[in-house]
């Protein structure tokens, strides 16, 4: 894939940080969600055991994926669902368009599906004359604003209610200046109801697909997936191939973890099982690879496919909270996005594994125990080894290594701090030094510890 429009997390994050009050608001809003998650998790006895169990089930799925996929296809087909296989985003988009064309549908409702964001389905359908209305409230907000979601669970978390009031005033004709959340939600409800009633096709995502039974589960708080699917003649569900779980009873593990991790709720308001089309309805499921089987073959990175898209790692990430989802310039932002995206395009997303302090909080909140921060570290090594690091950085690192590998050279400066002052980026006092822009430099002491030791202890 090409890397045109190269975007960089650090630059986009710096832009986001121009408005410090907004950064504070964004940080506190998401920290509130993290705190709710802590409270919900603490209320479950054996939370850590539950995480461990979920992780093991998903490990089992990844180790036997082809078997489970075949089992699922067979069971779903038996249930009357039409199963499609898509090797990549383009095939996925073509399959969806094909189904719509077959039914002569040019208007569709869609509930939340990060997979379709990953495949840029909306843009593709629009180019082909199909109108898509996102029915998740947050997604509808960003759709009206012509933006991608900034968070996979809370798509418009970067929008303030006053701004949404203005957006609705412009697009839905609500009174100017009305920013009452209840009022705005009601306005959206009326607006969306008309769409639900008039669209003949509905697309949903999939949270869990059960290999044993051929059914799939869709979790929403707004019931919008149900409303769309139940009213439509054609229901298309799109899922990444890693969304499988072996048996229905395993839902007891995942449904308890998902929403507690995501928003601190005990469970989503709607956890709907779809098993067979109702009489007269057509139900399709599109199983999408789009790089997943390649990813599965990478020993160090495969377990990121355990992800259940709860976004707990977003909410806890001190960098995400202070840089905003759009700074990641990818469909799935945050720490998990930073380890998934390089699989899709290593050059375009070469900045993302570096958009972290490796603090490790993400790995600790992850309900399926993905070693996110360790994978960030490992991606850095891969990116540099493949030649995607800047030449200046490589040269600096080589010099630094040479000095630090040779005690004679290290000590040769003779005077404390001299080498550091010349070679370590944060020790030069000028406006090109990123350290010094908003921080003072450490004051160099008269002597190094090594020099002090020589004088004060018998060597």
């Amino acid at each position, binding site marked *: 894939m090409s890397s045109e429009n190269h975007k960089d*997390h*650090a630059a986009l*994050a*710096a832009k986001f*940080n121009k408005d*410090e009050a907004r*950064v504070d608001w964004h*940080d506190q809003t998401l*920290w509130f969600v993290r705190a709710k998650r*802590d409270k919900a*998790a*603490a209320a479950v006895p054996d*939370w*850590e055991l539950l995480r461990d169990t979920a992780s093991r089930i998903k490990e089992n799925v990844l180790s036997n994926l082809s078997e489970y996929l075949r089992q699922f296809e067979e069971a779903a087909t038996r249930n009357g669902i039409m199963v499609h296989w898509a090797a990549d985003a383009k095939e996925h988009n073509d399959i969806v368009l094909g189904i719509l064309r077959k039914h002569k549908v040019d208007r569709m409702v869609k509930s939340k599906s990060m997979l379709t964001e990953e495949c840029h389905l909306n843009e593709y359908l629009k180019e082909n004359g199909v109108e898509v209305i996102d029915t998740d409230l947050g997604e509808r907000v960003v759709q009206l604003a012509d933006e991608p979601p900034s968070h996979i669970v809370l798509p418009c978390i970067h929008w303030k209610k006053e701004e949404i009031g203005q957006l609705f005033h412009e697009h839905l004709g609500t009174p100017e200046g009305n920013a009452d959340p209840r009022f705005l939600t009601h306005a959206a409800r009326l607006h969306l109801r008309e769409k639900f009633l008039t669209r003949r096709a509905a697309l949903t995502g999939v949270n869990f697909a059960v290999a044993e039974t051929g059914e799939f589960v869709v979790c929403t708080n707004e019931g919008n997936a149900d409303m769309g699917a139940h009213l439509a003649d054609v229901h298309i569900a799109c899922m990444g191939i890693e969304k499988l779980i072996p048996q229905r009873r395993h839902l007891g593990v995942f449904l308890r973890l998902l929403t507690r991790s995501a928003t601190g709720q005990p469970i989503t308001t709607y956890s709907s099982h779809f098993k067979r089309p109702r009489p007269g309805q057509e139900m399709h499921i599109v199983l999408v690879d789009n790089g997943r089987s390649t990813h599965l073959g990478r020993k160090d990175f495969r377990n990121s496919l355990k992800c259940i898209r709860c976004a707990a790692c977003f909410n806890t990430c*001190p*960098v995400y909270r*202070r*840089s905003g989802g759009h700074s990641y310039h990818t469909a799935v932002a945050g720490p998990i996005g930073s380890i998934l995206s390089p699989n899709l395009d290593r050059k375009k997303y070469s900045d993302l594994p*570096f*958009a972290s*302090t*490796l*603090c*490790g*909080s993400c*790995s*600790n909140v992850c309900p399926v125990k993905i070693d996110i921060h360790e994978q960030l*570290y490992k991606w*850095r*090594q891969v990116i*540099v*080894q493949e030649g995607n*690091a800047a030449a200046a950085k*490589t040269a600096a*690192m080589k010099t*630094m*290594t040479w000095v*630090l*590998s040779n*005690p004679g050279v*290290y000590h040769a400066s003779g005077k*404390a*701090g001299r080498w*550091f002052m010349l070679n*370590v980026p*944060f020790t030069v006092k000028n406006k090109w030094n*990123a*350290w010094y*822009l908003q921080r*003072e*430099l*450490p*004051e*160099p002491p008269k*002597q*190094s*510890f*090594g020099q*002090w*030791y020589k004088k004060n202890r018998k060597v």
Partner: protein
Amino acid sequence: MRVGLFIPCYVDQFYPQVGIATLELLEKLGCTVVYPPDQTCCGQPMANSGFEHLTGECTNLFVKNFNEFDYIVSPSGSCVLHIKEHSHETAGIHNKIYELVEFLTDILNIDHLDASFPYRVGLHQSCHGQRGLHLAQMSELMAPPFSKPAQLLNMVKKIQLIDLDRKDECCGFGGTFCVAEEAVSVKMGKDRVADHAKHGAEIITGSDMSCLMHLEGILRRQKSPVTVKHIAEILNSNIES
């Protein structure tokens, strides 16, 4: 007990007082401490930037310098974690290297200290020490709380430890992250500093000088009266009033 003292490069160059406090403290507690003069760096700055493949010589040098000791102790959780995870297992280094705090609590098993420090102190839990070396329970996990640095600080007379709103949020240093992602790094640091200041800290302490160097840079730019001190300096203090 022969202890090899590992003083990270930037501590050697910028914060000799932290090395001195660590040395004096270990000596007070009865250890025979030796500082191998040819030591330089653990290799972490390169490795975390994606250049782990260049750090072989740094690691070899480290092994050469420290192989002979019963224990290796360092006042930096981050550097210790790096050595633990990246030194060749054959050298056995990873089994005998300790961050200072855990060496005091887990190997020396100290239960009292002759130290006094009459200030209000905020404890910054550095991530690599906490989440990597498990110096303290992590707020994300549903597990019983503990804190090895707090355990030691509570042995210091007259100290007042303050609480924080976010007890283990990262400060934003992150190695080369501090310059590569300057805006976010600084914002994270400012927010940490504000949390400590809000709760009346006079001193911010921790077991990683790199985090404290970053926070100090922000405090001094803000002309804040709050200062930083490495935990070794506090544990080695005898200030009555």
